[in-house]
């Protein structure tokens, strides 16, 4: 353990990382945001999941530094009278969970199908890749809407009640299923390159079964592009969740997410309550920006042809 830590401390990765101010500041911002989101029940001034805490008479209170603001609500309240700062903290937690969950799901599906397509080749490859093509030719959001409608139909008459409870897993499933082709295509392309190398032939000469060759020998050599895509996809999944919530297919009103806050606030933007949309919107933009910048940094770090000075 200590040896690993020393190795990490002396690694080229950490050296390059510490010399890139953008990467360091993005990590700090991301860390603060994630910590704040997961500590929401502790640090948030109000519990937004408890409806007895909210008073509809407080609805649309302005942020505290404005004329009709209240010191009780730092960033004001939304249309239900919930404290906006608390709602944003809880909402960020939901958004991050959905973003990570959906990315993990799409990476698992994408890696398995991409490996299978690339290694098996022939008809399997053609079938899986045409399926991916068909899905890629629709926009992600449309596929997600179709899948969430299908989920509704499957749930039948319990749809409404179950949707409320299962909103997070359903969104993870919907976004994960809608986004796998990108990962699968990337993995397949790397597998096609790796498969021709002699170490794969050596594994075949040893007589290893195909599954073992695929997962033990080829997969570790195809994962670095997946890592880079994954960071970008986390941001993408958070945006998809926001978009689905904005369309009313995401999180229920009682459980705020960044997307659903932006959506509900949007209706009040012209009646003067701009803060309901603006603050969650800024938070979302910052969150996605830092994740994307970190993904870009990782891509540059893993690409030996893109050496930068510093």
């Amino acid at each position, binding site marked *: 353990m200590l040896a690993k830590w020393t190795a990490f401390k002396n690694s080229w990765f950490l050296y390059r990382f510490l010399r890139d101010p953008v990467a360091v500041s993005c990590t700090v911002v991301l860390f603060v945001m994630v910590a704040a989101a997961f500590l929401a029940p502790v640090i948030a001034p109000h519990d937004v999941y408890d409806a007895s805490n909210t008073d509809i008479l407080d609805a649309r209170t302005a942020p505290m530094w404005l004329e009709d603001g209240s010191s009780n609500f730092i960033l004001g309240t939304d249309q239900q009278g919930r404290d906006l700062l608390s709602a944003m903290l809880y909402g960020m937690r939901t958004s991050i969970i959905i973003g990570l969950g959906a990315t993990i799901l799409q990476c698992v599906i994408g890696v398995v199908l991409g490996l299978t397509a690339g290694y098996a080749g022939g008809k399997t490859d053609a079938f899986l890749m045409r399926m991916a093509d068909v899905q890629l030719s629709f926009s992600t959001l449309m596929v997600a809407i179709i899948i969430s409608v299908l989920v509704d139909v499957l749930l039948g008459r319990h749809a409404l009640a179950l949707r409320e409870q299962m909103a997070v897993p359903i969104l993870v499933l919907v976004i994960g299923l809608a986004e796998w082709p990108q990962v699968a295509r990337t993995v397949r392309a790397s597998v096609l390159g790796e498969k021709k190398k*002699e*170490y794969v*032939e*050596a594994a075949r*000469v*040893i*007589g290893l079964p195909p599954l073992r060759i695929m997962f033990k*020998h080829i997969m*570790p050599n195809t994962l670095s592009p997946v890592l880079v895509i994954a960071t970008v996809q986390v941001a993408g999944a958070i945006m998809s969740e926001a978009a689905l919530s904005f369309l009313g297919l995401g999180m229920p009103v009682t459980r705020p997410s960044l997307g659903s806050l932006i959506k509900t606030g949007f209706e009040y933007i012209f009646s003067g309550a701009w803060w309901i949309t603006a603050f969650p919107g800024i938070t979302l933009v910052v969150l996605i920006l830092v994740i994307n910048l970190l993904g870009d940094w990782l891509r540059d770090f893993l690409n030996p042809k893109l050496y930068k000075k510093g």
Partner: protein
Amino acid sequence: MSALVEIKNVEKRFDISGGFLDQLKLESGRIVRRRTVVNAVNGVTLSIAQGETLAVVGESGCGKSTLARAVIGLHAPTAGEVWFDGQRTDNLSPKAMRPFRKRMQMVFQDPYASLNPRLTVRSILEEPVHMHFPELSPAQVSERVAEVMCQVGLDPAWAGNYPHEFSGGQRQRVSIARALTVDPEFIVADEPISALDVSIQAQILNLLMDAQEQRGLTYLFISHDLGVVRHISTRVAVMYLGSLCELTDADTLFDRPLHPYTQALLSAIPRLGADPAKRVRLIGEIPSPINLPPGCVFHGRCKHAEERCRVEVPVVIEAEPGHMVACHGVQEGRI
């Protein structure tokens, strides 16, 4: 001299025409389906005796590596048969092939591509042992691996390192060790030294010869380096454009080559003080293996070629005892 490996009339063709739509061509107003096929190996028959080193030489693209891969079972031959120790192996299922995997192994050309960069040398070397000797305990496996590492000149203390931490010659030692861990009888070495420094080549060559002596190995040695071949091999097979030209023991081949291609090949070895005017110069290029020439594959560049060479494919004949050659000229006694 009993044959350990027999290659009977092996052919290998690769279809490079792509998908169905790529195969459609417009010819004189009609759509026809055309396939493009590379004839990598055309009917090669060889047998490798127990304990000998059979070298296969030829220029790039003559099908020697494809032949090696067909023998080891990486490519299924398009036609023909491969026999190992009296059993046919080219049509076996992966499961039925497994016992043979233990008995035949391969050493690859490029020591930078043949070792998985994400695995330590220990896991690279232990994997085949775990696979083929599941009854061994982990301690016995690492003992066996350490023993093989010592034999190929690697310090077992380096086993925890990754391949990129080794030099080219050391990696090739790892590659040889991987082949030796399962204690095989037969090793296919596909240009095992051509990617190495000249100073390292001799070391690896000696290592291969020592291993042969200690373990009684049989080698199929693919190379394009004639000096190396003369040094290591018992018998030599010369290939040109996927066909076998000449096959005989090493000394006879280098002293009295019969086939015109072999003569040209041997005269191309640079020698100090040799008369450059006496060199046999070949004119023209190797024909494409996609459209093989009719008749003898060498007739376009052979100065002895006659009408018969242009139409009739020569068969391999035994010109002298143990000296096989495929040439009409030799058969007719005019060369």
